[in-house]
């Protein structure tokens, strides 16, 4: 038991060493962490509440006010502080993104492991399902699904609808990735040996396969989360979010439909988009770096610059 712990600690240290040297990964981590902090500590980071309207001396709402000391990012069409909306919106956007991402990861891993491990008709069936799902254009499908589900008056909150729909449509890339990994692992000796000594399927999957694919799952999930956040923002922009719990996408919907653009209120439509880019970029950088560390790329191709191939020091240079 002790050896496992020492080995784990050493792996973690190596990982941290590699990770620390990678600038992109650090930038990604920074972006994600700051967004997380902003979301979690939202109430402490703003003196207003999200629905509070800032009023001027006469009690009228201060609509479309440019950034000022009172409101660092100005106000929206109703006079509410944009900065407050932004950080509270972070909670919604990121929650939906993370949850949808986890559903996609879970379904994708389940399908991927099952398809890869059991093979045969199960594999065929699952992969054909993936193929079918991939061909259907994603946004129109999601729009009609969400629109219908909401109309069905099933007493599910709009956000839950979004989470479910996104999660259940974006598992395909994970499934394929996991499946091909499982196929490679399955080839290896120890699986055959485990079967020979009578180990059951679950046991093999849990002890031999899962530990090996876990890092890959994690890297892939980070990327899926970033996609989920982007998709949610799009759907919310089209009005399919929850107006009472505005995400960044919903904010942009408000900005657009309430003429922030024509009114030149850039402080209203710029920040939410920037926030989306912020967290998506962060997740992508993180995910890419993780993936890169797991599947390190080759060092060079065959057509690189050959100017330095012959580097014979000129005679008269200091000898060793």
């Amino acid at each position, binding site marked *: 038991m002790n050896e496992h712990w020492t080995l784990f600690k050493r792996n973690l240290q190596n990982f941290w060493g590699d990770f620390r040297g990678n600038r992109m990964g650090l930038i990604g981590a920074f972006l994600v962490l700051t967004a997380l902090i902003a979301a979690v500590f939202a109430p402490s980071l703003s003196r207003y509440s999200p629905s509070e309207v800032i009023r001027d001396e006469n009690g009228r709402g201060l609509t479309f006010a440019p950034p000022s000391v009172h409101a660092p990012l100005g106000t929206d069409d109703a006079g509410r502080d944009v900065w407050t909306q932004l950080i509270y919106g972070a909670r919604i956007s990121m929650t939906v993104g993370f949850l949808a991402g986890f559903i996609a990861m879970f379904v994708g891993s389940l399908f991927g492991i099952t398809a890869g491990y059991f093979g045969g008709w199960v594999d065929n069936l699952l992969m054909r399902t993936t193929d079918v799902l991939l061909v259907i254009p994603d946004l129109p499908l999601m729009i009609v699904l969400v629109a219908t589900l909401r109309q069905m008056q099933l007493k599910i909150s709009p956000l839950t609808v979004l989470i479910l729909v996104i999660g259940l449509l974006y598992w395909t890339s994970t499934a394929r990735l996991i499946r091909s990994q499982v196929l490679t692992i399955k080839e290896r000796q120890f699986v055959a040996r485990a079967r020979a000594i009578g180990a059951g399927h679950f046991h093999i999957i849990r002890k031999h396969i899962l530990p090996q694919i876990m890092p890959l799952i994690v890297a892939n999930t980070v990327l899926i989360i970033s996609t989920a956040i982007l998709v949610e923002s799009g759907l919310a922009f089209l009005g399919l979010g929850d107006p009472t719990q505005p995400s960044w996408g919903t904010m942009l919907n408000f900005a657009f439909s309430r003429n922030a653009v024509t009114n030149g209120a850039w402080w209203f439509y710029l920040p939410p988009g920037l926030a989306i880019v912020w967290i998506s970029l962060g997740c992508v950088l993180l995910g890419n770096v993780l993936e890169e560390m797991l599947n390190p790329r080759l060092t060079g191709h065959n057509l690189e610059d050959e100017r330095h*191939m012959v580097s*014979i020091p000129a005679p008269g240079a200091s000898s060793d």
Partner: protein
Amino acid sequence: MTETPLLSIRHLDVNFIMPDGQTARALEDVSFDVSPGQTIGLVGESGCGKTTTLMSIMRLLPSNGRITGGQVFYNGLDMLTFSERQMRDYRWKEMSIIFQGAMNALNPVMKVGDQVGEAILLHNLMDQSQANRRVDELLELVGIPKSRRDQYPHQYSGGMRQRAMIAMALACAPSLLFADEPTTALDVMIQAQVLELLKEIQQKLGLAIVLVTHDLGVVAEVCDSVVVMYGGKVAEYGNADQIYNQPQHPYTQRLLESFPDLNRTVDQGAGSDQTLASIPGTPPRLTELPAGCRFEPRCHLRIERCSQEAPKLIDVSAITAGKGHFAACHLCQGPEAAF
């Protein structure tokens, strides 16, 4: 050797810059000659520098490779002073190469016949119709039916692809052919055919061949001279007779011992898959080389001097039969090699 050698390597040093910044000294002070029409074998374990030597001569090293010293004389001219443009002129016309693992060396979306004849047109040696005839000749020479010239590589078997590579390498009638492990990754019967083919071609065309292999049986079949490499340096160098019958370097001796079937010919089934695992220990890491002899940790004849001082190449012709026999070992008596 009375004639001027075709190819003359002198004190070649090659480094690789590893991803973590360390320098791997892949070749150090490598010297040997190739005469016109001669077949020379480069032997050694994986990683000893055989392939690197070939790639350095043709200047096809990967992007992290650096030739840091030495000279590569071809017909008297030092190719290391050539610009890339001059190199391109020499490539395939004067010297060509058959890479290890012919599986991927052919472009999968281009017809085999086109690939064989490509270099002829590239170097403007013939016009299209002449080139086509030459391709047919070449395919016939290696035993591939002409009718298959318009097929794609995936339609060829492994042995046929290897033979197509040979045909392709001969397209511009080079004087020198480099063959990197031409028989590895082929099954035994095909190996024999390919070796026969190489011998035949050599006799017919008078080519010089530098054959890289880890298989001493192959070398025994085909080579006039042998260069035994270890850890990036030349351990022993001489003609086939000297190397096989009077090996001077302990490494060569151990190598030969691990090939008990060398007395049998290829027809009797020798030469297959005889790896060198029987020498205990592992080759040195090229990033952390010892100050003394690189073989010393695994050597059964080592003395104290061996771990302190790297041996230079000694001319041992006085001991063995004939001239031109060199070994890099402190145990050998003789003058230093005059390279």
